[in-house]
């Protein structure tokens, strides 16, 4: 029990360390980027050098980096991510607009992905069908070799423009399916391999021998093996999803964290970049921790 608590404490310390590392890394990376928000005003509105200097002072961009960092980190701890240099709006408001869309997109496509992967892998492993195994491999290669933006462009052309079935702006179905397929490819293959070993294992054979139907075998004997592996893969898949949502947000005009970040990077709007990446990364760390707990719960080998 004590060891368990100590373990939890260490786990929390580790999470905090990761979060802190991310915050520091993002902050300093942002400041190495050439060009700042004042440059943007110069670019479009035309400022003289003296005006630029005055504006930088006003925005606090002329202070030393550590001072800026302490200032920012202090605010961030209280949920105050500052004000957008470009839009003069609280960054937290902008995050609040972007987050739901990203969560929806990422959540749905993750569910579609994991569902598709489990379904496909279980079916392929149980049936021993070459055709289904080929399908698993196909989806896997698809996810590695085809950039999602490329699939997105093609899907828009076919389903929106030629067939007129789906909207380009704001539609959720296409991006969810595209990302889901991508996730399924990453999870499906290793899951399939694992299951194929499991189907030949003694207890599954016994189950068959006892005359249990294929559905029951799948539910009670294969799924327990499948879930932990699928969960284990999910960490990497979720990390990849942030990138995936970014390209989908751009293609389908969805308001999300990814495009918020991308635009902020192009606009050198540091407070927004910092806040958005921090939220995404810390969220990822938390989700990973959560997945780990679930993982322990479903995998009997780990709870020992």
């Amino acid at each position, binding site marked *: 029990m004590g060891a368990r608590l100590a373990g939890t404490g260490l786990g929390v310390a580790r999470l905090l360390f990761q979060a802190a590392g991310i915050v520091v890394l993002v902050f300093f990376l942002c400041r190495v980027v*050439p*060009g*700042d928000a004042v*440059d*943007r*005003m*110069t*670019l*479009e*509105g*035309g*400022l*003289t050098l003296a*005006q630029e200097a*005055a*504006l930088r002072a006003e925005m606090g961009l002329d202070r030393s980096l550590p001072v800026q960092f302490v200032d920012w980190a202090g605010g961030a701890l209280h949920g105050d991510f500052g004000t*957008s240099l*470009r*839009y*003069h*709006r609280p960054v937290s408001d*902008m995050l609040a*607009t972007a987050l739901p869309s990203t969560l929806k997109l990422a959540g749905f496509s993750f569910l579609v992905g994991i569902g598709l992967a489990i379904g496909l892998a279980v079916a392929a492993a149980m049936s021993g069908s070459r055709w289904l195994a080929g399908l698993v491999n196909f989806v896997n290669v698809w996810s590695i070799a085809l950039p999602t933006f490329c699939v997105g462009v093609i899907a*828009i*052309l076919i389903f*929106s*423009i030629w067939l*007129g079935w789906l*909207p*380009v*702006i*704001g539609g959720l179905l296409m991006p969810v399916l595209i990302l889901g397929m991508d996730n399924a490819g990453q999870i499906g293959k290793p899951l399939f391999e694992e299951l194929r070993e499991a189907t030949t294992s003694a207890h599954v054979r016994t189950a068959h021998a006892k005359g249990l139907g294929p559905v029951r075998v799948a539910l009670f004997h294969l799924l327990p093996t499948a879930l932990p592996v699928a969960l284990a893969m999910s960490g990497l898949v979720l990390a990849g999803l942030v990138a995936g949502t970014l390209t989908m947000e*751009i*293609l389908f*005009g969805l*308001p999300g964290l990814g*495009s*918020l970040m*991308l*635009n902020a990077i*192009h*606009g*050198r709007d540091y407070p927004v970049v910092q806040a958005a990446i921090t939220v995404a990364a810390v969220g990822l760390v938390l989700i990973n921790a959560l997945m780990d707990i679930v993982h322990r719960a479903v995998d009997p080998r780990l709870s020992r």
Partner: protein
Amino acid sequence: MKSPSLTLDRRQLMLGAATASLVAVMPVSLSAQEAASRGGVLRYATLGLDTSDPHRHTGSIAVQQLYVEALTSIGPDGRVEPFLAEGYEVSDDGLTYTFALRDGVTFHNGDPVTAEDVVANVERVRTNVKGGWLASAMKLVDGVNAPDDRTVVIAMKEPYAPLANLLSELWIVSPKSDGWNETITTPIGTGPFVFGEWKPQISLYAPAYKGYWRGDMPYLDAVEANLREDLDKSGAMRVGDLHIASVPRDEARQLAKSGDIHVSQLKDSTWYFVSFNNRKPRPPFDDPRVREAIMYAVDKQAFMNFLAGDDGVVTNQLVMPGHVYFDQGLHDADKHAKPDLEKAKAMLAEAGVKPEEITIEFLSWQENYPQVVVQMVRQLGFKVNHVALDDLGAQNRLGQYDWDMNAMASGPRADIFLRFVRLMSNGPNPVLWGGVQDPELDAIVEKAVAETDEAKRKALYLKAWDRVMDNYYTVVLGHAANTIAIREEVQGYEPGFTWSPNWATGGIAQTWLKQD
């Protein structure tokens, strides 16, 4: 020089809208074909919206004209027309501008617009706003006052010809707007639509203002501006997710074929140019002969054809043919109208330049057209290190003056001076043009600005331009207007001179949607 306000009304009549506007109570649609039908939300996507404070805009000004208006506006022909002012007079010495305000204009909160409000706006821009196009003009303002409720007088320290044009971008906002003393967060303007809900980078929802001063306009229930920078507007136009959008020209050509979309363009052009580093030129690029030789390798016709097909105009000037400041003689004498590789090579040899040994540091944005220029320059044997950057990366790198050449573009402007000012030693953001520092050029432009006679002003501007061409500071490749795609259900909209969607004689106030 009083501009008759009557013409405005007559044009509205011609547009088939004012019949109803004179008798506002009357229900619309006398004849189903001609009368505007009311209602609908127009989805519009051109440029973004950087700020809710109309005085602090950073250049992306294609959206805020929905809810704010200015004393003047720029007509489709590029000439200034009175807008919130009924008319204005300039004194003979060019120092005093007297504006007569239009009657019956109210802010979105119902307050009538008074001369004091206008003065407050000019003062706010003069004292609070540091950057922007208006900054240099505001420095020359001696004083602003309101002799009566309907008259505003702006006194200048020296004559400044571009003033009336530039005032089209000094938007009049109610001093009661939230954040007036700092950054305006909810602008209360006079425009046909109200600043509704703004989601930066995503959208602005602007519902119609019922008390708008132009007759029974606006006809639309609301405008929803899509502010995404990275949107696939062409696809969205074809599907009908957008009604009006700016699209790249090659995509516009595709759209035009689809049948339910027609393609139009802004009336002022975007000009494409090659600039050399003028602030810290590196040999041999400090030699005008070498610059001239390089330009002989650039096939302007092929370039413009690539860029804009038949709509591209090859010229050597800052404005398109048809513009007041265009000079046919100068245009006809363009040495670089046709490429001449042999001549280019001979000139380089004469200047003792061995292109094979030189790598040109070439900067551009991430577009296709610079690659065309780069490839043409490579024909001379130069090695080219082409660095393509995003807006701010390019801005920053250009400012370091550690490059040799660039290929870039610059969009519509409310006044020709805004093109020349970038070539001046202390001009705002001169980096795209290599940071020209030429006191003699400055002097000529300053004289042109102070000249009240249009013909003499034109002669001075042309003299300045001659000097730019002789020194090969920057070389114009040609002009092409920005393309705007409009779905067929959109009625009564034709793009204006600049990106602004609202001006005295047209624009989005009189636009309506044909409903099936």
